[in-house]
């Protein structure tokens, strides 16, 4: 297990290199740069000095070299727009993103897993059909639109909840969490249902029933434990996505999260911030993925065996992909 974790951590290195390279060069190819934007009113001497300071008087390769040199020294660089360390900026935004991500995933897990189980065990019933219709509709709603409509209803018309920002504690969290959570819930309900449907036909449940195990235990212990892998996969993937910042939702609700920082920084061509934040996001997603993989091992002894045998082909260790998917947004 330790070797496996170390291996996974080492695998982050090429990802960081790759991500930084792609993002850095893409940002550079975009029209304009951050210095031009803040420097519109700057005197020419000052601008020239800043150009030198940030390496904009030289090629993009030089700037990338500078960036990587900094990265090796543990620094994610300095934001031109915010005049601040990228790490510091990121850490200021991370709490809001974490809060939103965990709230929406939590809501989705708490509601959708029981619903998915119910739908699967009463396959073809009214509950099943309704939950399927609702979740496919939930899946088809652009979440920024849902967010807007929720804001209009609950903030403008009913005045029940705040419409933006993160200043009113749990109340502020509700609408954004529902907006992000709806899509997650749809995905998770569908995954739970189809995964349970697969498991529910398995012979070992019949064995359990033949032993006299009560139906509730059969479903919640014997079946669920086996259906968990795809569910955990989806929870992990969605958690990862949410950690990258629910860009659009954060925008609708003026949520002070990482996603909004990134998109604002893209608009301002703040290369260091965008690159740094995406690297950190990738690292965070990888950590979530690692936790998910470790969870697999707890849930399924067969996978546990594969982790402890590091020489085995990696392809096998890859758990079954979740059958469900979501729109990219």
């Amino acid at each position, binding site marked *: 297990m330790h070797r496996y974790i170390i291996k996974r951590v080492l695998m982050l290195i*090429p*990802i960081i290199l*790759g*991500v930084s390279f*792609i*993002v850095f060069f*893409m*940002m550079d*190819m*975009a*029209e304009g740069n951050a210095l031009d934007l803040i420097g519109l009113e700057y005197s020419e001497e000052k601008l020239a000095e800043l150009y030198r300071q940030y390496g904009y008087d030289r090629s993009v390769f030089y700037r990338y070299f500078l960036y990587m040199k900094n990265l090796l020294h543990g620094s994610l660089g300095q934001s031109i727009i915010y005049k601040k360390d990228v790490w510091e900026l990121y850490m200021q935004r991370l709490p809001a993103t974490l809060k939103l991500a965990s709230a929406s995933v939590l809501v989705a897990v708490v509601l959708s897993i029981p619903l998915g189980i119910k739908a699967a065990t009463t*396959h073809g019933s009214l509950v099943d059909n309704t939950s399927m*219709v609702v979740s*496919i*509709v939930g*899946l*088809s*709603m*652009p979440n*920024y*639109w849902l967010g*807007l*409509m929720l804001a*209009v209803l609950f903030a*403008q018309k009913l005045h029940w909840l705040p419409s933006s920002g993160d200043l009113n504690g749990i109340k502020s969290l509700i609408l954004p969490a529902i907006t992000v959570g709806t899509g997650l819930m749809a995905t998770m309900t569908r995954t739970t249902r*189809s995964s349970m*449907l*697969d498991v529910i*036909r398995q012979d070992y449940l019949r064995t359990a029933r033949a032993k006299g195990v009560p139906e509730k235990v059969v479903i919640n212990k014997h079946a669920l434990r086996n259906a968990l892998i795809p569910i955990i996969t989806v929870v992990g993937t969605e958690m990862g*996505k949410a950690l*990258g*910042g629910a*860009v*659009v939702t954060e*925008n609708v609700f003026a949520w002070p999260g990482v*996603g909004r920082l*990134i*998109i604002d920084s*893209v608009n301002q061509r703040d290369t260091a911030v*965008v690159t740094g934040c*995406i690297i950190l*996001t*990738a690292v965070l*997603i*990888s950590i979530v993925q690692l936790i998910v993989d470790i969870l697999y091992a707890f849930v399924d002894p067969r996978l546990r065996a594969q982790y402890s045998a590091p020489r085995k082909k990696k*392809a096998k260790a890859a758990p079954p*992909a979740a*059958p469900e*998917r*979501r*729109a*990219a*947004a």
Partner: protein
Amino acid sequence: MSKGKEIAAVTAAGTKSKRRDIWRRFRRNKGAMLGMLILIVLILVGATVDFWLPEDWIVGQNLTEKLQHPSAKHLFGTDELGRDLFWRTVYGTRFSLAIGFVAVIISALIGVPLGAVAGYYGGKIETVIMRITDIFSAIPSILMAIAIVSVLGRTTINLMLAVGIAAVPQFTRVTRASVLTVKNEEYIEAARALGKTDPYIIFRHILPNCLSPIIVQTTLRVAGAIISASSLSFLGIGIKPPTPEWGALLTAGKTYIMGYSYLCLFPGLAIMITVLAFNMVGDGLRDALDPKLKN
């Protein structure tokens, strides 16, 4: 259709009845049939709208009738320049569908061969391709798309490219996974024994046999692409006005959402219904193509 023929060539007899079976299973799924009906209507509208909808109805401004709430004259109301939102939404079908389809074709064209090669050859090639895929998927897809549009500029085709490229990793993964399942089948061994070249085997034997997941993925991805594209529009990185792409309509409407929420409601509904239709057809296709997955 030619791909369909290829399947027929490869999977011996019974294909016709198999296809009839698929169709029978698909037809039985009411949701999928409803979705298909909606799609057919949308595609018909999208394909022909250029011929029968006068340009003036779409871009013609009439400032005396600006921001009118929905009425018999203007079903969906009018926007801030007095343009009829209903006709703009109808015309928008064309762009939204086109973006969805083209984007997915782009991602399939890149992702499927990459996945097939990775799955077929394995070893170093696979490692390289899959690592690159990992890197690309480590970048949140919407940010990826934003970056691409920022670099390439804001044109329709770039938007399609951006949305398409951002979805490539998914196609690569799905294709690789299903290639892995068929690559050791006996008929592949047989083809190899007959001295067929690798590209021939990949395109004639392997890909046709893992089409099901790819077809399903494609359908569902179109839905995703439409949402992605509209999200980009929403964030202000979308398509060129006065093109009435739905996301762009919604974005424009967002400004007026306080007093004129219908400007957001209808394009949003249009997106939702279209995506819903694709999702339902996708689900139906998956159940029909792979009955194991259902019951």
